[in-house]
Structures are given as C-alpha cells and as structure tokens.
C-alpha cells in the first residue's frame, strides 16, 4: 500500500516539469485569451468589460466572417489534395519499393517539410510572380495569355496560397501513408492476387481500409494546418490583395498588433480553437472506431 502510494508520488514528480510547462505556456495563455475576449482592451491601457460584444461583431462583420470562409477553402488545398495525392504517390512508391528511385522520390517529396515555411513562402512568391517560373513556363508552351501575378490577382491569390500549402503537406502525407503501408501483411495482397484482384481492386479492398488510422492522422494534421495557417499567407500575400487571402490566424495578428484590439483578437482566437476542435474531433472519432 505505502509502496504504491510513494510510487504515485514519484510518478507525479517525474511528470511535474512537463506539467508545469504545459500549465504555464499552454493552459494559462488559453485561459487568459478567453478572459481577454470579454474585454475591450488595447493591450496597454485600462480595459472595459464588454461581455459577448466581441463575439457578436465577429459574426456580424462580413470582413471578419470572410476570413473563416477562406480558411475552409484552404482545407481543400491543405487537406484534400495532399491526402489524395499522398495516397496515390505512396501506392506508386510502394510498387517500386526496391528501386533507388523510390528512395529519391521519398526524399524529394519530404524536402518541403524540412524547409522552413517562411523560406517556402518566399520561394513560391518568386515562382508565382509576374516574371516568375510559372508564367515563363506558361509562355513557353504558348499559354502566354494565361500569365498573371498569381499572388496578386483577386481570383487566383487564395488558390495560389493553397498550392503552396499542398506542396508543403503532400510529402508529410506520403511519408505517413507509406509507413502505414509497410505495416500491411503482404499475405493479404498475395491472397487477393490469387483471388484475381488487380492493382486497383487491391488498393480499394486492402490498402485503403488498412490505412484508416494513418489517413485519420493526415487529415487531422492538415485540417489544423489549413484552419490555423499563418506563415505561408503572411510571407506570400500578407492577406492581400484586398483581403482576398485573409485567414483567421493573420486577422488575429492584425487585430492584436496593428489595430490593437486585443479583445476582438482573442474572441476570434477562441472561435478558431472551437472551430478546429469541431472539425478535428469527428475525424478522430471516425478513425478510432475503425481501428477497434
């Protein structure tokens, strides 16, 4: 009895440094953000209690609400594209697993994960500029009339930012899915082949269901990346042109540090957290059920 008791204490002791860090640097800011969201405060002077006003403004001001819609549009690029593409690439790489090409492909695809997002943003803003590689390629194949400043055009800026995100995340998804594939029992494939299944049937009957958990992780990580995006947008467009790429993360930053509306920034941050949880928890549940 006493041994068990002291063991529990020891356990807490070991966990203490991490717990304290978590409390001070995660829980405390989180709680403070919730508190600030009920005040009208410029970050320096005295503050006034405004109740839920910061939240109602969030949903009544079309400009702020638009940022949330933009974030959902980004999910398409940050989440859907990388996961689908990742599945395809991983299946292909697995097919040539023994060759040297597979190694090279893996490395090349994972490279964007190693590069800091800021560097990726700068590089892509060069590629997508009016004199950049993207436009030169278009001109070279006779599509010169399509050329434009991709990040400076109202119609293409948000998709262009999405493409940067997809480029960054496709490698992560591929690697995760590839790792998942290596865990699948080869006997399954063999028996499927004996039953006369082709590669497509194999993919849908064996690979895809076995990867349920990995796909869940990919979708979760990428949805969070889309909803909480900041770096890529800040570097490539800063929310422009004309707010067409303004996302919640950037809006929070502008509200807090340029408009000095700490209360409204906090309210948007709280809504963003809730939104992320609302999107991610169902995904978690769906994939967990499948594994048991």
């Amino acid at each position, binding site marked *: 009895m006493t041994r068990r008791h002291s063991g529990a204490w020891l356990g807490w002791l070991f966990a203490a440094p991490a717990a304290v860090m978590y*409390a*001070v640097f995660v*829980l*405390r800011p989180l*709680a*403070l953000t*919730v*508190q*600030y969201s*009920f*005040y*009208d*405060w*410029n*970050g*320096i*002077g*005295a*503050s*006034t*209690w405004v109740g839920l006003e910061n939240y109602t403004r969030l949903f009544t001001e079309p400009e702020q609400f638009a940022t949330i819609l933009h974030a959902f549009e980004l999910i398409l690029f940050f989440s859907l594209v990388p996961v689908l593409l990742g599945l395809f690439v991983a299946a292909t790489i697995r097919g040539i697993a023994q060759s040297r090409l597979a190694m090279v492909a893996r490395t090349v695809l994972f490279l964007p994960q190693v590069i800091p997002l800021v560097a990726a943003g700068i590089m892509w803003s060069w590629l997508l*500029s*009016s004199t950049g590689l993207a436009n030169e390629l278009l001109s070279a194949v006779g599509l010169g009339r399509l050329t*434009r*400043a*991709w*990040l*400076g*055009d*109202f119609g293409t800026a948000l998709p262009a930012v999405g493409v940067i995100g997809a480029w960054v995340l496709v490698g992560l998804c591929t690697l995760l899915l590839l790792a998942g594939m290596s865990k699948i029992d080869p006997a399954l494939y063999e028996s499927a082949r004996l039953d006369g299944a082709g590669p497509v049937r194999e993919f849908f009957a064996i690979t895809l269901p076995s990867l349920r958990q990995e796909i869940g992780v990919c979708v979760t990580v990428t949805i969070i990346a889309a909803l909480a995006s900041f770096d890529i947008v800040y570097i490539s*467009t*800063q*929310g*422009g*042109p*004309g*707010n067409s790429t303004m996302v919640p993360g950037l809006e929070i930053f*502008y509200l807090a*540090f*340029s*408009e*000095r*509306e*700490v209360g409204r920034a906090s309210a948007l941050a709280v809504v963003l957290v809730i939104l992320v949880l609302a999107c991610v928890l169902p995904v978690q549940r769906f994939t967990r059920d499948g594994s048991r």
Partner: protein
Amino acid sequence: MAALACAGLLAATACSAPGSDSDTPDTAGSTGAVATTCGSDPVTLKGYFETGFPLPKQLSDEFTKQFPNVKWEVREDQFAVITQNAPRVLADDPPDLMRLPQVSELVKDSLLKPLDGYAQAYGWDKWPASQLEQMRVNPDGRRGDGPLQAQGLNFSMTGVFYNKKLAAQVGMTQPPATLADLDAVLQKAKEAGLTPIDQFNGGATGGLAFPLQNLMASYGDPAAINDWIFQKPGATIDTPSNLRAAQHLEKWIKAGYFASDINSQDYATMMSRFIGGKALFMFNGDWESGNLDKQMAGNAGFFLMPSQAAGGKQAAMSAPLTYGISAKATHADCAAFFLNWVATDQKARDIAVTVGGSHPMGPSDAYMPAVKEGTVTAATLTAGATIGKDNGAMDFIANATGAIYAKSWTPQLQKLAAGQQTPAALLKSVQKDYESQVKG
C-alpha cells in the same frame, strides 16, 4: 462566464481586468527644469532604430565621436515590426530613443515623454511651426496642436521620380507643369510601349496611396486633408474634390498607366524595377534620393505633383522622420540633447542630407550643406522650398489612425487596382472605418 474561466485558472493568474495593473508614469510634469546636456559621466543610450536606413546609425556614431562619454545600445527592426511593437516596447523595455509610427495612440496611453520642456530650453518653438505640428497631440488625442510628443531627425518630401533617359524618349524635356501635361506624358509613354508608372501595391502595403493623395492635393486643399489626418472633429475624406482625385486615379488604372502586376509588387520590387529602367515614373519620397543618386547617377529626376493650372500651388506629403523618448526612459535628457544636436550641429546636418537625403530639422536660416547641381537630392531639397512657400505640406493619409493603412487604404486600393471597387465606394468605406477607429 469569465468568472468560470478564472476559477479554472491557476493561482498564478490574477483575475483582475487586463491592463488595469499597469502603472502610469508621470507625464504631466514636463515643463519642469530639464538638463540640456549629456553630462560627462558615461552614459549608454538605448536606441530602437529602423532597419534598412543608415541615417540614425551614422548620426549616433558621429555623436559618440563628439561626446565620447555617450555609448549606444541599438536594436533594429523593420518599420512594420516597430509599429506593431511600439506600445509594448515603450511600456516594458523603454528605450531612450525610438523610431516611432503615428504617435496619437501612444500618447493616449501616456507612453511618450512630452518634449515641451526641452522645446523651450532648446528653442525648438522658434522653428517653422509646420515642422513639428505632426508630432503635437492635444489632450483629446488629436494631432496638429498641443504638447510636443516627439522630434524628427529630418523631414521627408514626396513627389514623382522619373527616369531621365525614358523621359527624353517620350519627349518630356521638363517636368509637367499641369496635371493635364502629366496625363499627356503618361499617354505618350504608354503608346511608346513603356510602363508609365511602377508603384508598389501588394501585400499589406497599398502604395497607390501616394499618387492618390498627390491627386487629392491637385484637386483640393491640402489643409482639409491634414484636418482629416489629424482627426479634427467632423473632418471627412469623402469630399467632392477627393472623389475627383480617386476617379482620376481610376482613369490612370483603366488606361493601363500602371504596371499590370502592381497588386503583387512590394516596395523593394518597385525600387529595383525603377532603378533598372523598367518604368518612367514612380511616386516616392526623398529618403531614396541618396540611393538614386548613387544607383542611377545623373539619370533620375524629381518633380512635385503638378497642380491643375500652371503656376498653381503645389502640395506634397512631408513628414518628420519621427523619433521619440519613452516616458520611462532612463536618459531622457541625453536623448533630447541628441535630438537637438541632430538639428543644429553642422556635421549632423551634413549627414542628414547626404545620408538621409532629406531636409534637416531646425530653424529656416540654419546651415545647409552644399549639394551637387543636377542630383535628385538637389531637386528634392529645392522642392522642399516650394512646398514651404506654398504652405503645401501634408502628413500621409496612411497616418490618420494606427490601423487605417493596413485595414482600409491597402485593401481598398488593391480592389481599385483590380477594378473591383469604385472611387466613390472606396472613399465611403475608408471614411466608415476611420470613424469607427477614431471613436474606438
């Protein structure tokens, strides 16, 4: 609800309303006695300067040469970062001397040391009033009059820079005398296959504010624009003459006088294209004069935005390179002594012109360094005299409130450039944001 959140909080967090615990430094007793010297004891001045502009560094080095007991501890950031950091830095890590954005909101929070005591002691109040008015803030938070809250290292002049070679190519032998003349040159440049104007307007920096405000001053009274910038009661940007200016800008956009990709261009891209001879005109300020004299020696020219009628009054955006002293600064007296030295010391005034490219602060009859004929620096300094004579100095419309540039002018001007906004709706929208920001 908040109580609930607080209950869940760790004891470490006090649950009082945010900000209420900040101590307010005494900023009222500014007219008391001040020391007009750095003394002879060793002093280390804490400076917070802007990256990319060598002027403050060169001035501080020269200052240390003349007053060896003063050393510097300098931190540098880009202007956008300084703008975002200013309140927190002034409150928590007070510098003795700091590059400042628009000061009215900093004054509201009592973060700056009022300089009236120094102004009296050093005689700054005898300088031309227009030099300091942008840094005066009255107790209501409006700029233009009231106690002096900051000082300049020099004051800038804006207008139109042009490429002399390209100008000759389209037959422009002298600066346009009227707005109609300028329109004609733009049209000729367009027909000659040149890019008539390159102007940054991408990201969070709506550079079309430069030509727009110049056009506003061509069509209307610069004093009315200043009233709006200084937040005078009842001032509006949505006036008939400003509408005509915005329509004129739209006409330029629709005529294709601007580079087609201005909405993705940042300031640096514009500079490198202009220096590379890719555009005839650029709207900018004399902080680039020194740079252009070096990189386009003899090939860069400058003129003030022409008025409607030949010989009419001209106006330009002109603002001091604002530096202030934190209300909590340790060596405020020495920092003020430095600011006075910058405006009055002969060597410092040389540096202000040759390195900074702009006109030094100080009395109008003060020493002026000789500048080589035909340089951009000479042209911008001469322009400064014209603006002084016409009383045409304006602050920037981007400085009206802390957020008006990033949140209103920039997105609205980007929409205008893309043909997604009308001039009338642009002005209405900016005015609406302005009113809510001034009130808030």
